[in-house]
């Protein structure tokens, strides 16, 4: 893996206005000052509970929704300023696989049309279209019989494969995987995930893997970022994060992970966090986690901890560590 960032996100913010009767009442800070880099060929995991802004990050990076502020660089080019041919190039090179395969395929188009549409649009040279599409279908574990069928004739797993074939047709480099397995049966999870890993090995894809399922993220990712209420609280290499989580929120998350071993379950440290995540419309001042944090200090209520490097490759936003390292 080369240490060269393919995607660089700087101070990304996305606020959704909450409309009152006459004027804007406030903002939902779905993504608030998020920065990270993704290296070419790696899988960057993004975890966090529902509603913490994971998907918003992905949609903003791909310019599917307009960012409030911040910048995103894709292969050194400012994504938000791309125009014309360069924008088309970006649209081709950066793709997204959605969570819900039941709504991500146009029900009025056959599999062939679904896969060929982007190819025709981007004028990608493919030779015989039918052979090309069959080739892609075989790559994702389907076959020629499925060519002229409609999405409703397929199961969730098969639809997700079709969605993947459509992405592969564009020969992208960077793919956002927005909870690609969470809508599927557990029995299909492994098939899809292994296929994604194999494809990465063969074709050198870079993934941004979004999930709330820690086990899946651990299996897939090289590095993992943990999000809480629109902010990244910790970034660490996958194995390190699971061995020694630093941020109290990460610790609590990992402690909640069920492990099928009664001995371990009895012995393992119990870290409880109480309550619900606060509303992102009015996030608490200081560290957003402080009302639920077992280690909350005075400074946590007053100042927001910056995301700082505590070890090479390990970043955490918590006064427990930031104070220690100065």
């Amino acid at each position, binding site marked *: 893996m080369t240490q060269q960032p393919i995607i660089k996100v700087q101070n990304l913010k996305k606020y959704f206005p909450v409309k009152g009767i006459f004027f804007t009442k406030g903002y939902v800070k779905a993504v608030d000052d998020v920065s990270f880099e993704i290296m070419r060929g790696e899988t960057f995991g993004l975890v966090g509970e529902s509603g913490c802004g994971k998907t918003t990050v992905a*949609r903003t990076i*791909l310019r*599917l929704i307009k960012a409030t502020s911040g910048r995103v660089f894709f292969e050194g080019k400012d994504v938000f300023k791309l125009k014309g041919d360069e*924008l*088309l190039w970006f*649209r*081709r090179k950066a*793709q*997204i696989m*959605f969570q*819900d395969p039941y*709504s*991500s*395929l*146009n*029900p*009025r188009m*056959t599999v*062939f049309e679904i896969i060929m*549409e*982007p190819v025709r*649009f*981007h004028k990608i040279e493919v030779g015989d279209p039918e052979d090309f599409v069959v080739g892609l279908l075989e790559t994702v574990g389907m076959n020629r019989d499925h*060519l*002229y*069928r*409609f999405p*409703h*004739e397929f199961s969730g797993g098969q639809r997700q494969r079709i*969605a993947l074939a*459509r992405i592969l047709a*564009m020969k992208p480099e960077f793919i956002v995987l927005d909870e690609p397995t969470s809508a599927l049966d557990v029995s299909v999870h492994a098939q899809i995930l292994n296929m994604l890993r194999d494809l990465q090995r063969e074709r050198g894809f870079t993934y941004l893997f979004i999930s709330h399922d820690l086990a899946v993220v651990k299996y897939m990712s090289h590095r993992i970022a943990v999000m809480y209420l629109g902010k990244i609280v910790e970034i660490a290499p996958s194995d390190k994060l699971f061995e020694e989580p630093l941020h109290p929120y990460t610790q609590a998350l990992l402690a909640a992970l069920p492990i099928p071993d009664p001995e371990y379950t009895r012995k393992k440290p119990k870290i409880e966090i109480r309550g619900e995540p606060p509303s992102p419309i009015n996030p608490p001042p200081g560290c957003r986690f402080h009302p639920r944090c077992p280690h909350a200090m005075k400074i946590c209520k007053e100042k927001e901890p910056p995301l700082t490097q505590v070890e090479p490759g390990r970043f955490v936003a918590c006064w427990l560590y930031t104070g220690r390292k100065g």
Partner: protein
Amino acid sequence: MSGEEYQKSVLDRVSDLFIELLAKLIDRVRPGWYERNRSKVSEWKLMAYALNRSPPGVIGLILVLAFIFVGIFGPIIAPFSYRYFAIYDAPGSDLAQPGTVVVTKDNRTLYFPLGTDHFGRDLLSLLLQGARTSLVISIITIALGVPFGIILGLVAGYYGGKVDELIMRITDIFLAFPALILAIAFAAVLPERIHEVLQSNAWLRDFFLWLFALDQKDAGILSRPLAVILALIIVWWPGYARIVRGSTLSARENLYVEAARAVGLSNRTIMFKHILPNIIGPVLVYITLDFGGIVLMEAGLSFLGLGAVPPIADWGRIVYDGSQYFPRAWWLIFIPGLVVILSALGWNLLGDALRDILDPKTRRSIEFKLKKRRREE
């Protein structure tokens, strides 16, 4: 149990045959189409089965097909021209009763199965000719008004924000007036303007004369039915803008729209290829229902004296003219009235049935029932 798992009725077999024929025809024009669209064809068959299982739908379809058939061929199969005025001395009446044989002054013996109107024209021929007027007016109104409404609704729903506000407020202004009142106002004002246009465009005049199957002599009053068409278009599009906007608002939230955006497709492609085909179902139902509505409203406008004037044959106008001879000449009221009711009813029944047919859930349940019955045997 391969192809024989369906328990089909006679109607199903007829519709199967018809759809197969249609598919083969398309295949002839575009080779390989049938192979690629097997799923689509079997879906069509299921839709036909769904229709076959709804008696009102079948009755509606028959009425609608009859209306269209008469609308197209009526003027040709009519026993008399709508401009044939029989002059005769009927004993005791200047209007021939239904089923009377009349000897005209030029010594011709004529049979009027449905009687004559006060000009001595054959009522049956007038009704057949009037079907053309009704059909042409409803088709042009739908063909121009609906796409206009659909495009505005799509744009408003897809872009949202200020564009949406602007389009929908204009739509609201049109919807604020009762449709019939607005149509009356336009139908009363427009004929003179249209008359001028027709005067300077001979080909346009000839085209409409041909469309309405009218004689050259009636070119002067052609502007009247055309004014009705324009008035109907003006009052008809806002409904479609509304429906389409609503459906677009929900359809654009689908992930395949977002996927299309991620591919980089233009807004126009997304609107017309990804959103429109998925919301066209309810629109089709409304179009069918509105055909009936337009037939009624057109007859209503003519009845008020705003549409076609004699000698152009028009169902509403026949009733209007006949009302002066009521109750003596009852056939001038009841028979055209019945014809109007049957056409409007046909479209409405068909529309109601379509609502069920276009719902994939109904189709699946019918597929299920058909297969299950077979298994029980």
